[in-house]
């Protein structure tokens, strides 16, 4: 079901759905100080907003730190710092 929902987005960013080797990693799985490359999104509505804010597939994202209670998180992308909720971060798929 997840596949059918996400197909248009994956298609948009040319992600091969047949190559399901390992579970997808998202920004929410990153550790402070870690960097990765954005590869796609899991939520269509949210992806439009994230793209506008500079979360572009192929660009680097750096995980800076989390809030004291673990949520939200602070990341650097496209040259500036942003905070987003863990739930939102988990929709950004990364490669590393």
């Amino acid at each position, binding site marked *: 079901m997840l596949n059918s929902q996400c197909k*248009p*987005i994956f298609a*948009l*960013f040319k992600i091969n759905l047949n190559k399901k080797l390992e579970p997808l990693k998202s920004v929410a799985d990153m550790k402070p100080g870690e960097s990765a490359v954005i590869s796609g999104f899991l939520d*269509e*509505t*949210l*992806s*439009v*907003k*994230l*793209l*506008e*804010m*500079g979360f*572009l*597939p192929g660009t680097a994202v750096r995980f*800076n*730190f989390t*809030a*004291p*209670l*673990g*949520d*939200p998180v*602070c990341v650097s992308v*496209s*040259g*500036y*710092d*942003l*905070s*987003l*909720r863990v739930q*939102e971060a988990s929709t950004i798929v990364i490669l590393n």
Partner: protein
Amino acid sequence: MAAKKIKVALAGKPNSGKSSLFNQLTGLNQKIGNFPGITVDKRTGLCHLSDQVQAEIIDLPGIYSLYPRTLDEKIVAEIFADQHGPHYPDCVVLVADATNLKNCMLLLTQLMDLRLPTVLALNMMDLAAQSGQSIDVQELSASLDVPVVMINARTGQGIQDLKKILAGPVKASSKPVFQIDEEIKPLVAQIRSRFRLTTDYEAYQYLQQTENLIFLSQADRDFITQLAKAEKFFPHKYQGAETVTRYGFIQDLLTKVTLKTSDPEWKKFSHRIDRVLTHKVWGYLIFLSVLFLIFQAIFAWAQIPMDFIDNSFAGLSNSLDRLFPEGPLFDLITQGIIPGIGGIVIFIPQIAILFACISILEESGYMARVVFLMDKIMRQFGLNGKSVVPLISGMACAIPAIMATRTIENWKDRLITIFVTPFMSCSARLPVFTILVALIIPEDKLFGFFNYQGLVLMGLYLLGFFAAIISAFILQFIIKTEERSYLIMEMPTYRKPKWANVGYTIVEKTKSFVFEAGKVILAISVVLWVLASYGPPEQMNQAEAVVLVQASKQTLTEAEIQDRVAAYKLEHSYAGIIGKGLEPMIAPLGYDWKIGIALVTSFAAREVFVSTIATIYSLGSTEDQTTIKTQLKSEINPQTGGPRYTTAVGLSLLVFYTFAMQCMSTLAVVKRETKGWKWPLIQLVYMTAVAYLSAFIIFQSLS
């Protein structure tokens, strides 16, 4: 010769320095108005560009792209898409943060495709220079075919250049950026010809944002929706693709014009501050101290100017009273209107101080960190990280607190915060609380240490706090909205606040309170004054005769007779009649008609309860607590023969005043902030119901 007048809109992302530029261009020639349908204030102002050209500058809500994320952002797409609308600009200034050009350019490329004449203002050039970044501005301007000016909106550098460019006609860029997908070109062509639009991209916006463009008639919107449905058009998919294409263009352009990229180390200082301010111990401690400071400022420091205002207006009222001859019209002026205006002006110190604090928090970049720290906790109650500041301020006064909710972007979060803030026990409740607590709670100490009266008082504050939190929790399931709650928020680099901007914020907030909420407050206070001073003439005129008859049996001083006349008049005024009419309704709470009158008059402000009680018990206009307390203690309830103010009655009243929306000024401010009477009325009914039920339960279970 009359100067030519053009309309200039300021657009750009939040934190790009739009407001600073607006203040630089317009100075104090600012006007606050309303956009229809949304709650963002419309800030407009006049600016003298050259001898021939004058500009009306309009400051738009901060946005990243034409596709809105919040209800309030819709207005921007609407203004830019409606060529015949009243706000359609002749020219747009896109204010860009030069330290982070990439995100700012997205909107610029959209404006280019709409063929709107645009000037790119590169703001914060000082910071960009600090970061080591260097851009070939001429190349940038040539590649975009858009005039580019370097400005520093904080110091005013470059403003003259910007004015010069705006005065000469600005041409629209001839460079298209985004090509509409071949598949939907026929669709766009149909819309374009039907609405006779100048660009394909404008037609494309009609297609993308049909529901947001409220200037279109329902028939027109249906036409587009039908068309989109027939062609299986999915807005989101295309929006994503559009953004990716635009960023592709921007990236290429920036690679071409960037002479030197910024040194990644330049934000090190900001990051170092973050390590302390978002630390799990220090972060909260510092935030608590900041909150305490704000609270202290509006609770205690504001008291000095407030007392001054209070005394000045009382003095003015008295001296005019002596000057004017007697007569209903003069009474209306000296006792109705002047105190009414005083009742508005009295809030200015608190509003000014709170907004000074808030704008310092916003300007310095700390507010984003407050949200970062508090979001997880507040979200569980349907509130926003930014709700903390209004809620705490609400413990001093709900009026500035509710105005402070403006900083919450999400409409639902803001509405819930507005709705629950009046539950926080404000300083106007304190006089009511102290007199009633002193009356019914013994002065003993628990374990010889904790003062019972203090404990009860603290309990009342906690009660208000929990009422706010629980109501917020329930409301998040009741209020429905299409707007999704996001927290994708920029963490701006820390900087020193610009004091002029703080000043403009204070002026703006004070003005909008005085002229918008003020009208309602004045009207209601005059009505309340009339109710309490006038009654059916036959009884009001008898007042002195009746009292003199009573007095003849006792020996009373002149002052005592005056006090009795005042009490008699209040009893037989319209407010008295309403209070008596309320008696059957409030009897289950343990109140008599005298308390009923106090409930009516204290709708003006809660502390009026004390002065009304003093008048009605013939104590004159004393506010001396011991006198009132002694009098209330000796009051006998004729039905029981025992004291009138039993513990049950006292607690019932305390709980009632903790929960009830006994404040017309709050209602007036809620009306202004929500742009309508719907929410203040729901709030009034809800809070009164909660107050009534709680007081009922308390009284019935204790008596």
